[in-house]
């Protein structure tokens, strides 16, 4: 680490604070060192205030106690190196000059080519392609709604790409509704609301994702309402997505809801099995991975609610295959996704093990806890003890106690015995595996 006043402070603070305090409050700070001044930049006001209250004095003291740095001045602000908040402050001001510089924010991966079509989304895709062909003319606004992770954002980006491809000097801007709100708030704070208006009203296509986040934000809704009207009047395209039908969004002004319905409203439904399989194959293809059919079907059958869930499962299988250098097989897939497929971490108790084991061997729980030593009882008892040792955190004395007050050496003996028998007797091994599966899945 290079020697500098801030690095010196870091070393000292790391020794004084708990790792948690250090990682939470000190690590996110960035330092700008110029001459004899050290400016600390906190990512937000909350961190700044906290650091100011809890650590600022100590940091100053660390500097002043050091001969080399004793004359250095220390200050603390909200901001970020290379990407300072001040830059964002003036973003809207810079943007409007002459023809505003619009960042499209489009994700290059989300195109029509990479969108997998099925019954559940074909209407939405057809409408989107029409809008892309004739922006501002066919359906305006285009309102795409549906549950989470079904491809609304993908379609929206695909339209944006197609508009740019057809007419590359178009200005297309995609943003999440939260970003619109944040930009507006910042513009208001910095008296730049006119620039903000000019910026958003001068685009050829405005794509706003998840407009349900406008709910209850009245000032943002009003601003958006005017932007919306201005764009529509100028025949500029508006595309919106939402997690539900516009009329069902509570906290949204009626006049907005009704305007959202002026163009075309299309739904995306959860994909059916064939589409889910096709999505997996397409995704795997896009990253040059070969996925056996049985693996695609296994994932598609088990992860049904949305595309993100499918992709998450596939990502996990691919990551495991890469990290362990094993080929993607059905066996690996089952192993990797086992935890995800479990509804929840089951709480395994000794009582539960006793109950399950008794049911499995068709004996009574009282038999398991009794002193009876004939094999038809003793063997299941030993299996249950071994399962208790393997599947719970109880100590051997605790396990012994739970089995009719037996000594921990009896439990130890049972565990050893079952471990041996699992190798020599297939039936015992099968029983153990079956019970273990019942208890953990």
């Amino acid at each position, binding site marked *: 680490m290079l020697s500098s006043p801030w690095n010196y402070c870091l070393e000292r603070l790391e020794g004084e604070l708990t*790792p948690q305090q250090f990682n939470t409050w000190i690590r996110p700070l960035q330092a700008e060192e110029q001459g004899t001044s050290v400016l600390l930049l906190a990512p937000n006001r909350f961190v700044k205030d906290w650091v100011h209250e809890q650590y600022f004095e100590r940091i100053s003291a660390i500097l002043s106690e050091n001969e080399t740095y004793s004359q250095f001045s220390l200050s603390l602000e909200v901001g970020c190196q290379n*990407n300072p908040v001040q830059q964002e402050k003036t973003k809207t001001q810079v943007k409007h000059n002459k023809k505003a510089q619009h960042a499209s924010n489009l994700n290059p991966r989300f195109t029509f080519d990479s969108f997998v079509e099925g019954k559940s989304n074909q209407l939405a895709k057809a409408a989107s392609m029409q809008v892309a062909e004739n922006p501002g003319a066919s359906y305006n606004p285009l309102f795409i709604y549906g549950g989470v992770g079904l491809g609304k954002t993908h379609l929206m980006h695909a339209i944006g790409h197609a508009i740019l491809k057809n007419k590359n000097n178009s200005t297309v801007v995609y943003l999440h509704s939260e970003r619109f709100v944040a930009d507006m708030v910042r513009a208001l704070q910095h008296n730049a609301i006119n620039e903000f208006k000019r910026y958003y009203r001068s685009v050829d296509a405005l794509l706003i994702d998840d407009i349900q986040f406008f709910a209850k934000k009245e000032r943002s809704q009003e601003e958006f309402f005017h932007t919306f009207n201005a764009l529509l009047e100028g025949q500029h395209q508006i595309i919106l997505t939402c997690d539900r039908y516009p009329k069902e969004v509570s906290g949204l002004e009626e006049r907005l809801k009704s305007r959202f319905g002026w163009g075309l409203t299309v739904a995306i439904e959860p994909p059916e099995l064939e589409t889910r399989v096709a999505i997996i194959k397409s995704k795997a293809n896009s990253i040059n991975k070969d996925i056996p059919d049985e693996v695609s079907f296994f994932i598609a059958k088990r992860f049904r609610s949305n595309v993100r869930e499918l992709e998450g499962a596939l990502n996990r299988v691919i990551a495991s295959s890469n990290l362990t250098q094993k080929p993607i097989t059905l066996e690996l897939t089952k192993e990797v996704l086992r935890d995800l497929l479990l509804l929840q971490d089951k709480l395994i108790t000794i009582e539960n093990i006793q109950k399950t084991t008794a049911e499995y061997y068709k004996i009574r729980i009282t038999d398991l806890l009794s002193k009876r030593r004939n094999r038809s009882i003793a063997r299941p008892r030993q299996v249950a003890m071994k399962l208790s040792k393997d599947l719970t955190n109880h100590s051997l004395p605790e396990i012994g106690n739970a089995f009719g007050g037996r000594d921990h050496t009896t439990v130890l003996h049972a565990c050893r015995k079952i471990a041996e028998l699992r190798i020599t007797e297939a039936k015992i091994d099968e029983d153990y595996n079956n019970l273990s599966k019942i208890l953990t899945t």
Partner: protein
Amino acid sequence: MNQPLSGVQIPLEFGFRETADFGHFIEGPNTEVCKLSRSIALGETFQSVYIWGQAATGKSHLLQAVCNLASQADLKVAYIPLSQYAELSPEMLEGLHHLHMVCVDDIDCIVGQPEWEQALFHLYNRLRDQQRPLLMTGAKGPRDLAFQLQDLKSRIIWDLTYHLQPLSDTDKISLLQKRADTRSFEISAEVAAYLVKNVRRDLPSLLALLDKFDQATLAEKRKLTIPFVKSLIQDI
């Protein structure tokens, strides 16, 4: 109040600070997620990850290890322990997308709190837009996270998700020995095995005993033998 025994020196309570780095992490059956976390910390992988598991399986340790390693690689990182500070505000997550990566511990703590859920969702989106990783942990599997904000849940499911598996008894023995070593006292393999067999084997219980042994060996200036350990356990 407990009276100290005469002749026994009571050591000062220092509040031992564990070193939360990869070197002190026992991987056990969790090699894969450790490998991935290291690679994220070094800026080689940009994947976001959700790691879940029971209490005391090492989730917080792992996230802090990521912070340490990332800092060594000159990457800017923040660690946000949601369960640790009741005074935290959702505003705390603003602006963090300018850092190279963010670690958020115990996300189940904010389930059902709309402002927090939205703040985490927005942080997620902004980091993802910039291909910067977000590492999160929680006690529940991703499908069981009962967020009101479905968009947040679906994004977490989209990520790589790993179940941090509990350590085997053999791993627990190595962990006890390693932890004792960082506190400058010794637990023989025999004593560690005795503990794992005879007391509750979950990590919080075992680590709590370690604190007790640390104090006891200092106070009585004795090595940890099985009879000594037995006497200490009986005191509990």
